[in-house]
């Protein structure tokens, strides 16, 4: 058992994750084939989540108590409670089945053009990103609200800073620090959530590969999948750490 594991580690260093017990194909190759679809969904979901979530949260935080704020809060509360695969089913049924505006299933690689790629991804990525957007909206609102009552904001106002100047120079960077931290944690969640959304959207990606592997107890495949996901998450967190250091001078000098 130990020997087996050591051998696997050795192979791993050479980029060889072994062969699938079921299909007999190389695990590395299988993952390489399935990864683009999954990474596309996840990547697009992150973009949607950041744009929608941070934007809505910022507006809500700056206009606390307004109707915008209440709407965002309600929507975010709902968004967090909705399973992404269910949202995907609803979206696909509304936009791809009842109205045939977008393709219901499948994936087109980017090499086939931007629109075919995007049109297949937009519904699953929206569904996947929704919960993260909701989480980010709440968190951003909270951070903005928190920064607004900090003494240094009062100092800046006392200096005559107001409006856009105040927001840009005093608020954004300080509020971004905790938001960026949360973003790193959300990356893992999105990659996991992609598994189920892929099923709903009929996309053959890492998720569907992994599910089959589990059902077939195809251990090399599962190992490969978990390892690959971990590497992706580590890379994302590395990027987040770099961004964090850039935003927060305290980290830079420490």
């Amino acid at each position, binding site marked *: 058992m130990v020997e087996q594991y050591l051998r696997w580690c050795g192979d791993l260093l050479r980029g060889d994750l072994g062969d699938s017990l079921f299909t007999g194909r190389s695990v590395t190759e299988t993952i390489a084939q399935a990864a683009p679809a999954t990474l596309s969904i996840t990547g697009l979901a992150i973009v949607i989540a950041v744009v929608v979530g941070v934007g809505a949260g910022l507006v809500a935080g700056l206009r606390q108590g307004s109707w915008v704020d209440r709407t965002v809060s309600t929507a975010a509360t709902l968004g967090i409670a909705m399973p992404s695969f269910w949202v995907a089913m609803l979206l696909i049924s509304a936009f791809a089945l009842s109205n045939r505006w977008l393709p219901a299933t499948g994936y087109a690689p980017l090499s086939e053009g931007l629109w075919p790629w995007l049109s297949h991804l937009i519904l699953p990525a929206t569904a996947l990103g929704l919960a993260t957007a909701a989480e980010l909206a709440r968190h951003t609102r909270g951070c903005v609200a928190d920064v607004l009552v900090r003494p240094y904001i009062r*100092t800046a106002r006392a200096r005559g*800073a107001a409006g856009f100047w105040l927001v840009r120079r005093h608020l954004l960077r300080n509020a971004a620090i905790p938001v960026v931290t949360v973003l790193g944690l959300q990356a893992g969640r999105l990659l996991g959530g992609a598994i189920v959304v892929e099923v709903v959207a009929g996309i053959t990606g890492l998720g569907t590969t992994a599910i089959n592997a589990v059902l077939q107890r195809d251990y090399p495949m599962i190992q490969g999948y978990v390892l690959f996901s971990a590497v992706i998450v580590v890379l994302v967190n590395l990027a987040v750490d770099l961004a964090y250091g850039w935003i927060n*001078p305290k980290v830079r000098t420490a």
Partner: protein
Amino acid sequence: MTAAPLATGTAPDTAGALLSVRGLTLDLVGGTPQPGLVQGVEFTVPKGRSVALIGESGCGKTLTAMAILGLLPRAVRVVSGEIVFAGTDLLTCGPRELRRIRGGPVGAVFQEPMSSLNPTMTVGDQIAEARRIHFREGRRTAREHARELLDRVGIPDARRRLDSYPHEMSGGMQQRVMIAAAIAGEPRLVVADEPTTALDVTIQAEILELLRDLRRDLGLAVLLVTHDLGVVADFCDEVVVMYAGHVVERAPVRDAFRTPAHPYTSALLGSVPRSDHARTPLQVIGGRVPPAGSFPGGCRFQPRCRHTAPACAEPQPDTVVGSGHHTRCGRVAAGGLQPGREL
């Protein structure tokens, strides 16, 4: 260092006032509501003078200062009164005019420099900010001014320090940066809210020394919010004593300390340990400042006052008892009580 001349009996002449607060009344509307959280507050800051706003926490001194800066919390509403600075009523002038005054002719220094400075902005940028906003200076000119200001407040190696962040400095240095930023807008009045409370006492002495120098050189008037009677005795010309949202007494500093005309002032003075009375009991004010939402009617100090009389349940008018010396105690005003400095 020569001591500043003592002000005695000089009436604060309202005509020469740089800032005059008249009948300022603030209501607390959120949480437990308290009408008259700050009520009928009146005082003036003459040109180039230093006025102390003192009292324990919860007495409304910081709120009064924030009202002057237009920085009241949301839950507090201005009900009536005026705050006239150099001919402009800050309560009615509109946001644009208010922004012109804040950080320009009226500067501000706050407690706890660490949290009052933006942690993600260099100190140079923070000092330069007032120059850029109020004098429309470009980045480079403003930076040069910021360097001069850092020099002025006694920070060594100013050019290198411009690019430091607040967390890279000691508390005393941070407070010097706050002061540099406050005087960057070339103010005539600086509102300083407990500027030395968070600092060690030897650092406090340095900061007070700096403020004294700046007052002399720039002709600044200072409104100093503090609870430290020693700092008042050291630094201020006039004293405004607040209790539970009322100004209970205001007077030139020597009169306030020598012949206090309100039982609260005299009790505060009596509760300070004095070197010639070591290991003897200090004066105690029983009870505590009532929390907002439960201020008593009439004289608000009356439940804790050792001289309470039935008449104290009635509202107490502001009465002049000496040159520039006002009290809100009816019994003292009527001559029935001479609280003095109780020991």
